[in-house]
């Protein structure tokens, strides 16, 4: 079996009295794509933020490469983050910079590439997400889907070993969704990336998932291959994965 890269152990996180994560354990092995499903508001983004040290869990432990993220010193944390890409759900592009500057920013700050290399890398990353024409635009001039793709290009530009994608295809049309999903697949294969992908998108999941988990009410309720999840008899999963079945209690939808 491949090396264990990410080991989330029994993590809990509350905001005030409101428990979001309630003992979540997840393991991800080297070169693996793990897809995380879950209803809106179950704490998928919170889980990713705990993993990169933006939020601190109340309980449990998170180890990456065998090192506890919660106990890292600033230097160790920096080294860890330099080797990690994070696509925010909101894309989080820097408003005051052009698309090109957004992409070049992490390269300039953290690595010692020559000016030509930096420019070439930015252009190539943008090409991968099919946005070469937008290189000199400001983020405010982009559509939601374009912002998402620039965010993706920015997070993969440093060719990190670990990638965390928070809904990489939300807001994209089916064709672009397939292209982006294939890109994520290719990156995984070429760069041996280890990834966690939060998504609701079945097209995307079918292309990229090696394994999937479902998060519900703060817990991992099921874990397995995508097919195992889809063919499960669990009523919640049937509800989650079958487009034509809606729980009877959803009275509002009866009117259609």
């Amino acid at each position, binding site marked *: 079996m491949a090396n264990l890269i990410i080991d989330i152990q029994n993590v809990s996180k509350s905001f005030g009295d409101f428990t979001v994560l309630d003992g979540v354990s997840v393991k991800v092995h080297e070169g693996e794509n793990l897809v995380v499903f879950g209803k809106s508001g179950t704490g998928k983004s919170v889980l990713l933020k705990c993993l990169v040290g933006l939020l601190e869990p109340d309980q449990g432990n998170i180890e990456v490469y065998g090192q506890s993220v919660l106990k890292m010193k600033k230097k160790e944390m920096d080294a860890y*983050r330099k080797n*990690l890409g994070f696509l*925010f759900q909101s894309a*989080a592009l*820097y*408003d005051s910079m052009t698309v090109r500057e957004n992409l070049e920013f*992490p390269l300039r*700050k953290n690595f010692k590439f020559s000016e030509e290399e930096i420019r070439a890398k930015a252009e190539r990353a943008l090409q991968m997400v099919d946005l070469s024409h937008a290189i000199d635009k400001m983020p405010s001039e982009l559509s939601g889907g374009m912002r998402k793709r620039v965010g993706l290009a920015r997070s993969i530009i440093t060719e990190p070993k670990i990638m965390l994608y928070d809904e990489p295809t939300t807001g994209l049309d089916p064709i672009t969704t397939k292209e982006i999903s294939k890109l994520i697949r290719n990156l995984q294969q070429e760069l041996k990336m280890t990834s966690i992908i939060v998504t609701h998108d079945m097209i995307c999941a079918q292309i990229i998932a090696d394994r999937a988990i479902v998060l519900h009410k703060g817990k991992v309720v099921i874990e397995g291959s995508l097919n195992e999840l889809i063919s499960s008899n669990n009523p919640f999963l049937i509800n989650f994965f079958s487009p034509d079945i809606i729980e009877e209690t959803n009275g509002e939808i009866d009117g259609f």
Partner: protein
Amino acid sequence: MVSSTGKSLKAFFIEIGGMTAFMMRFFRYFLLPPYEFAEIRKHMEELGVKTLPIVSVTGFLIGFVLALQSHPILARFGAESVLPAMVALSVIRELGPVLTALIFAGRVSSGIGAELGSMRVTEQIDAMEVSAIDPFKFLVVTRIIACTMILPLLTMYVNFIALIGSYVSILLLQAMSLQLYTGEIIQAIGFVDLLPAVAKTFFFGFIVGLVGSFKGFNAEKGTEGVGKASTSSVVVSSLLILIMDSVLVKISLIIWPI
């Protein structure tokens, strides 16, 4: 009533504590490399461009009105001849530094509050942190340094413009050669008038940068968070400037009595 006063008093002290910690963090960071010189220069240029028009107009009018108002008062005591010296002393010692700082606070502190606030709310600050780029160093330290360095320059410029305004005002009342006007001023103004007055503007600039950054960097989620960060920066930094001014004037009068 008592408990709500108690609560807001508690919030006040928490705020003071937070700001002090924020300031200490600045001092811990600003000597450490990497030095973001390009970023500091960029901010200084932006701040200059943003405030130059309004401080120019204000500066001119202050000088103009001050001379206009003082003339009849001095005339009552038969002391019109000290008009240039009096205007110059008022402008250089007090009005120039404080008014420039207050305008600067209004324009810049709110701007920084809103800018950093929206970066906080839209997760840009988190994104920077996850890229192993220290957002405090890149966003906050550079802005505080830029404010601290640009305000003294702006103040000297405003002083100059205000003295032009007062000269124009005097010319409307009586004939006076430029030579005489500048001669009177140069004679009246000494080192003790200039140095403390310029020195205090560094503090004012620092306050504006610090308060705006503090409010923006710690903005609460949501668009109200950004608005609140922006308006409260102006209120707090203006108040702190006036308090700081009283303290510094008192101190400088002890060190350099007139």
